[in-house]
């Protein structure tokens, strides 16, 4: 078999495997377009006979999705800002030195990121209720998410800083820059892409966050889209086309960001180890 034929065959198999793997996603999009009777047809149809585009508008209106998505956006943005402001400097210091204190700090950070959110929520909730933080539920969720996700961000951004040649910073110091100046004018711009990708990853995570929001935010006006989807799915629901339309509206922006930045995100995740 020639090289080209082999490549074509491999590509074909790869596309088939990707199609099988991504079938659940396809099923979400297709179900959202089916009518109430068509989705319960046996055998199921794999292409909607009459696409029901109006389902989207109906679900958006009836579930108040604008408010839910706005809350998700507020929470995710808040968490990203807080994490970035706190995490970048921490990652920089942990990348710049290599001694026993840095090792201890890294170890503690790695330990913190493994704590499951659903186990940490009990003490966080009780503590927040004692501090009166539950009166500002979205802020409380932002802080909780920041504490949960910052270790991940620090680990990723630290890898970025380690790729910045130290000689450049040293040269800036020799040229009379202060540490602050060298950090903001030399190191930070060089690490900008890595920081951005890590921030986007954190944003996507926070945008779908569920445990903290579900436990802390009681007021429906302030709940994010994940909690909204959860309350939409009652135990005996049969509105699957509407639920899938909700899921579609919720997840498509995230998927769009991912597909657009796929290369960057994957390599940021693996820190440039895949060429």
């Amino acid at each position, binding site marked *: 078999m020639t090289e080209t034929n082999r490549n074509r065959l491999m590509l074909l198999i790869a596309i088939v495997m990707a199609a099988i793997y991504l079938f*659940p996603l396809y099923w979400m999009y297709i179900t959202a377009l089916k009518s109430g009777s068509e989705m319960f047809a046996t055998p*199921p149809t794999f292409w909607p006979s009459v696409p029901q585009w109006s389902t989207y508008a109906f679900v958006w209106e009836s579930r108040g999705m604008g408010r839910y998505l706005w809350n998700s956006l507020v929470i995710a943005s808040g968490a990203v800002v807080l994490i970035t402001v*706190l995490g970048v400097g921490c990652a920089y210091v942990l990348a710049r030195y290599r001694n026993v204190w840095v090792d201890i700090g890294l170890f*503690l950070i790695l330990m913190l990121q493994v704590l499951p959110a*659903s186990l*940490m929520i*009990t003490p966080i909730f*009780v503590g927040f209720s004692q501090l009166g933080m539950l009166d500002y539920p979205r802020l409380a969720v932002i802080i909780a998410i920041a504490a*949960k996700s910052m270790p991940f961000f620090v680990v990723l951004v630290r890898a970025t800083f380690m790729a910045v040649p130290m000689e450049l910073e040293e040269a800036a110091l020799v040229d009379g820059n202060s540490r602050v100046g060298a950090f903001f004018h030399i190191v930070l711009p060089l690490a900008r892409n890595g920081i951005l990708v890590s921030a986007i990853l954190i944003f996507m995570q926070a945008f779908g966050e569920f445990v903290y929001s579900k436990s802390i935010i009681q007021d429906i006006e302030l709940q994010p889209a994940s909690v909204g989807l959860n309350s939409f799915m009652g135990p005996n629901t049969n509105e699957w086309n509407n639920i899938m339309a909700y899921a579609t509206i919720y997840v498509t922006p995230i998927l769009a960001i991912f597909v657009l930045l796929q290369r960057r*995100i994957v390599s940021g995740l693996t820190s440039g180890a895949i060429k």
Partner: protein
Amino acid sequence: MPHSPSSGPTGHLLPAGERLNRMADAPSSISSRKGLSSAQAPGSPVRDVGGPVTRLLSSVRDGRGFDIVLVAFPLGFLFLMAGLPLLYNVLMSFQEVDMFSLGTLMRPFVGLKNYRDLFAQPETLPILANTAIFVVGSIAGQFLIGFGLALFFWVNFPGAAWLRGLFLVSWVMPGLVVGAIWNWILSGDFGVLNFILREGGIISANIFWRSDPNYSLYAVILANIWLGTAFNMILLSVGLAGIPADLYEAAELDGANAWQRFWTITLPMMRSTIGAIIALGLIFTLQQFDLFAAITSGGPNNSSNVTQYWAWEQSFRQYDFAKGATISVLMIVFVMIASVVYVRSTRHEVRG
């Protein structure tokens, strides 16, 4: 990553990137760091002679103080928001906590009563067993499928990198959306999975994945395998890319076939990567919450309940915060052991 990795990508969080980075440039980064400590002298402490305040300010602007300020705030924040809750959790597991004593710190101490009560409950052991099945089943599925895919995409062909990356969509989706989709796919009468299995002649009658106690846990495992496979694959791909190609060339010259090369080169060279990925899988799997909330809610009758969901249920459904805290403490101890194994396996790589 979301999901979690987790949770995806929700609740999902991996130190893997860092590990891989170190793998890639450990020798060079160590040497450059040594170079730095000597070159750093000009920028170091006291350059001007002033009062203590001036000296402090100048240190913050231009010396060690700068590093300390940068690192103190985040670590302080993490201590307040992750370290303290951890300790508070332990404290509560020894106290009697109810809705009335929620507001005070000094609640009646009950010693080990919460722990004794926990193990006296009939559902405790089945739930622990479920957790073990969930963890082992999820990790085995994610890892084997992920490894298979990684080996396939290792053969370089045009478009391989892009298609491989596409698999990661499962990981960036909110866990609850993944759960909703699988909930619908796994539906008993109208689910598409039952249809496909029936058409394929694998089953003759519909399986009620979500409501049959014999299957409900496996329904969540299935969804979790789907969620985590891509992530396993990407990390395994990185490990595979790190194996020097000349090893295979040499083996081929010696007449080793593909199967022998896999067992004698690929697996041994991947040992530490595999160890780290399995430890990471354990950590992620124990963080999985959203899928349970979206697919079975732990039911029917706790048949698909696992500790991380149960702890939350105790606190936020039964309002028994002491019990929730007790379960959490037990699980956190377990997770920490797993993560020590993980951190150790990455350490080993750097030093070795």
